[in-house]
């Protein structure tokens, strides 16, 4: 019985460490944006990312000038790097929405200090993802009438029964709603920056971006309703987006794609890949900007656990794919499994995938690895590679040997496949560096609510409570929560 508070601490570790007040939280986070000197490592990192992003520009120009023949995909592997990269990027984005929406609805307080940059990661990942299918059309300027229903002079419309059109609606809705959610979260923080900025121009820009927010109680009341409803809308949205992405495959009658397990398996994979990317980003970020008080050790451990859980679901997916192939007793299904795992020319990619996604995460069962930043970072990088391989395996090994042996062919990417992929990574990091420089990387107003100072008569400020049903504690004399 020695310490109830010690036990409480163990069950609900504090999400803000150190001795912080409203003012110190505000200053610490907003100083990253407002303080005069940009750290040297920012310029180095931004410079490298920006140079790599030029590779993307070059690849796109080359592609548009020459057509998609510059890529390696050809029959029977008509989908390759473009769709692999599309699914990879959009999957990465999903962790951001999971953190901002689903964990908010579940009242997981640890989301508070990582949601802002996880949402930024979502936006930038979706921007990278959207480029691939658009450029795969070869003539994106014509894609407008292929993809979007608008009355055009040819009098034709997109085909709404096709998963590819569902995908257009899902991804564009996802990008828009993610942007709205992110921006709504930023409004009060932009107001803080406006009130703290010394530079006249910054002040003006932040004033515009904050819409004249003044923290009025009536505004907060509607704001919280909006935020909660957006979270409630984003939750089914994020699940639908990757389900629809998986329909791109599973609605087709290709062995290896035509499986009912695809939607949940894809969603779990997306969250798995996304948490890996969040860890890759936040481990260096918390050191560079000394945010260890807000992105605590506990946060990293929690993310490691989520990665382990979703990774195991993904492994279950792999096992079921093999089982379905065998148990279906369909010769094409079984041939595809054999081709994928041991008989085909790409067997190595499958086993590399199992090592990256199946074996590496088993280390997370052990406290030693889960609590070490080095190992978490390393495992996250391996998982990111693994998730890319997963899409490679699903797409290439299912297509390269189709129903007619005469049309079998090998696929290998060309230089422009690689430059475009690497270029989007540069583009992603360019945007992230700009975000870190100009926008508060942690949600300031939400971190304020975590402080004990924020409690009124010891009552926590919880998001999950119905705003009108909060028990008013004015008359009670209960001691403040310790």
């Amino acid at each position: 019985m020695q310490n109830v508070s010690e036990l409480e601490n163990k069950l609900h570790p504090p999400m803000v460490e150190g001795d912080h007040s409203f003012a110190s939280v505000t200053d610490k986070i907003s100083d990253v944006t407002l303080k005069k000197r940009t750290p040297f490592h920012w310029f180095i990192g931004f410079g490298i990312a920006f140079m790599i992003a030029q590779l993307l520009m070059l690849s796109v120009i080359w592609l548009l000038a020459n057509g998609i023949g510059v890529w390696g995909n050809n029959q029977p592997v008509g989908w390759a790097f473009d769709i692999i990269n599309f699914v990879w990027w959009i999957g990465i984005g999903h962790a951001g929405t999971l953190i901002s929406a689903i964990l908010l609805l579940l009242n997981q307080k640890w989301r508070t200090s990582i949601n802002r940059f996880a949402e930024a990661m979502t936006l930038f990942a979706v921007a990278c993802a959207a480029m691939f299918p658009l450029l795969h059309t070869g003539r994106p300027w014509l894609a407008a009438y292929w993809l979007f229903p608008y009355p055009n002079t040819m009098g034709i419309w997109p085909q709404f029964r096709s998963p590819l059109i569902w995908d257009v609606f899902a991804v564009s809705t996802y990008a828009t709603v993610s942007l709205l959610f992110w921006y709504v979260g930023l409004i009060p923080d932009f107001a803080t920056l406006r009130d703290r900025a010394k530079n006249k121009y910054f002040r003006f820009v932040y004033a515009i971006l904050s819409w004249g927010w003044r923290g009025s109680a009536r505004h907060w009341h509607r704001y919280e309703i909006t935020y909660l409803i957006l979270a409630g809308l984003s939750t089914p949205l994020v699940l639908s987006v990757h389900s629809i992405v998986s329909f791109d495959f599973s609605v087709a009658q290709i062995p290896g794609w035509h499986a009912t397990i695809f939607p949940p398996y894809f969603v779990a994979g997306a969250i798995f890949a996304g948490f890996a990317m969040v860890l890759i980003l936040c481990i260096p970020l918390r050191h560079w900007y000394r945010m260890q008080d807000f992105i605590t050790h506990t946060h990293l451990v929690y993310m490691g656990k989520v990665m382990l859980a979703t990774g195991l679901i993904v492994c279950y997916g792999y096992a079921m794919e093999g089982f379905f192939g065998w148990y279906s007793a369909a010769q094409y299904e079984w041939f595809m499994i054999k081709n994928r795992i041991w008989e085909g020319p790409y067997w190595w990619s499958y086993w590399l995938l199992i090592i990256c996604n199946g074996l590496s995460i088993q280390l997370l069962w052990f406290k030693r690895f889960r609590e070490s930043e080095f190992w978490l970072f390393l495992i996250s990088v391996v998982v990111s590679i693994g998730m890319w391989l997963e899409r490679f395996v699903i797409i290439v090994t299912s297509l390269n040997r189709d129903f007619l042996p005469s049309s079998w062919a090998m696929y290998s990417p060309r230089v422009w496949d690689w430059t475009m992929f690497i270029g989007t990574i540069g583009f992603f990091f360019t945007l992230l560096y700009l975000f870190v420089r100009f926008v508060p990387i942690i949600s300031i107003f939400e971190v304020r609510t975590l402080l004990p100072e924020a409690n009124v008569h010891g009552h926590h400020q919880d998001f999950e409570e119905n705003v009108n049903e909060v028990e008013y504690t004015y008359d009670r004399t209960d001691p403040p929560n310790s």
Partner: protein
Amino acid sequence: MGDNIYGVLAEFDTATDMVDAAVKVRDAGYTKTDAFSPFPLHEIDEALGIKRSILPYLIFVGGLTGLLAGFGLEYFVHVIDYPIIVGGRPHLSLPAFIPPMYELTILFSAFTAVFGMLFLNGLPSPYHPVFNIPRFALATREKFFLIIEASDPKFDHEETRKFMEGLGAQEVFDVPE
């Protein structure tokens, strides 16, 4: 100052102090009041008697509009304007129409939520009288403010100011129009 006053503003150090003061303001019969805090403060809604917003109903209507717009679009395209049999499916193939309808429901709801919130809040409002008080910049940092507006029927400059000063505020300001 005289008549050109927007209201009387009081500054508080802690959330608890402000909520306690807000209850007294409400009990004294003031209705044109508002509070400002650096984060959402749930207790203040009841303390000031703020009623639940109609926003959720607007969002529901927005979502319904999206759903019907999605269905209407698909029906128009595949049944009225360009009926063509694809994959042996009927012109009106509802199951295949669901994903776009679903996405548009969410899209319209989200737009209604965000722009409805901004509209009902009267934002953007680049100017507001409270911004005239230099200390008010701290409302987005660490301090809590309570205002009784001059448009309140019970408002009397001298008396209201004296009342506010008795609420344990750090400082009381007259906010010019």
